[in-house]
């Protein structure tokens, strides 16, 4: 289970790597979709998030089919990170 602190940290990393200059962590809903309707990210942003996970947490998404679920929302990313930290 991801802590509120980890969720906030993930939001800060997302804002940083994607250069979302006008957005604060509070503007991103924990469970809102990151791609498509929510933050409106696309496949190019997904690339940056892959690198962010690797650089910040040392985690790689080994199975391409898992990618969509991991990057569904901030909560799903944070839970993925938490599960690998555990």
């Amino acid at each position, binding site marked *: 289970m991801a802590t509120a602190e980890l969720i906030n940290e993930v939001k800060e990393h997302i804002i940083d790597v994607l250069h979302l200059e006008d957005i604060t962590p509070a503007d991103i809903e924990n469970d809102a979709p990151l791609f498509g309707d929510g933050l409106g990210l696309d496949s*190019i942003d997904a*690339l940056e998030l892959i690198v962010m996970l690797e650089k910040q947490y040392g985690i790689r998404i080994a199975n*391409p089919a898992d990618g969509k679920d991991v990057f569904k929302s901030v909560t799903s990313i944070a839970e993925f990170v938490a599960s690998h930290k555990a």
Partner: protein
Amino acid sequence: MAESENSKWAGTTFGTSWMHCVLIKMLRWVDVRVLYAFVAVFVVPVTLIVSPGARVIYHYFRRIWHQSVLHAAWSTYRNHYVFSQVIIDRFAIWAGKKYNIITEGHEIYQKLASQSDGFVQMSAHVGNYEVAGYHFKAGKTLNALVYAGEKATVMTNRDKMFAEMNIRMIATSNDMSHVFALDNALTSGEIVSMPADRMFGSAKCVIKEFLGKEAKFPLGPFNIATMRGYSVIAINVFKTKWNAFKIYVTELPYDKDASRREQVAQLSEAYVRELEKRVKQYPYQWFNFFEFWEDR
């Protein structure tokens, strides 16, 4: 995900699956020049009338090459004729026909292929890139990003040819699994091949001066390449005779210590300049059948 305007063009091989099968069987016995003559007389003229791509290519010769009305019309015919030849050649190769192939810069490819790191090769919709896939033997897996909408026969025949050659096709996907597959391939030391001249999926782009006018190029390939500082080459293949192709391999340099934004700017500039050079050499082998430039 925002749909790019260029993705309106389907980008698939013309014809039904049974037509493709018949063509392959026919090419086992018939000289390609017989089919070239047939398409020159019966197919290309009809295509020029019914295909929206003909008008696009006519604009290309008028606006980019500043040709007169008659000259551009003739050039449009030539472009469609060469395109038909290239399509026939693709099926001829699947049918087992052999072509003479000359490579410029083969040592660049060999050097990268012999290293343990992955690298990126960027292509464009010019000439006949697929020939490079059949020609090079890297000793490591080549992952080719392909358009998911291609017809079954085309994909099956590519699969058959590529399976023996250590080539894996990764189809573009709405669930973005192709992005993860490309990343995994590169981090495993494999080769990733992507077209870098056509927008699909993401609408993010770099705008470059290309052949005298501004054009959009997809950001994705440049982002993938610079993500971890991979080496990048451009590979362009052109038809030089009825039975011959020339492959150009060119290293695309960029400062791997610069900021990501700067790396993308340098790499995309290098790619566009190389493509521009080749299209100037082979203007009739430009096969982007949509309005490529901004000011149409």
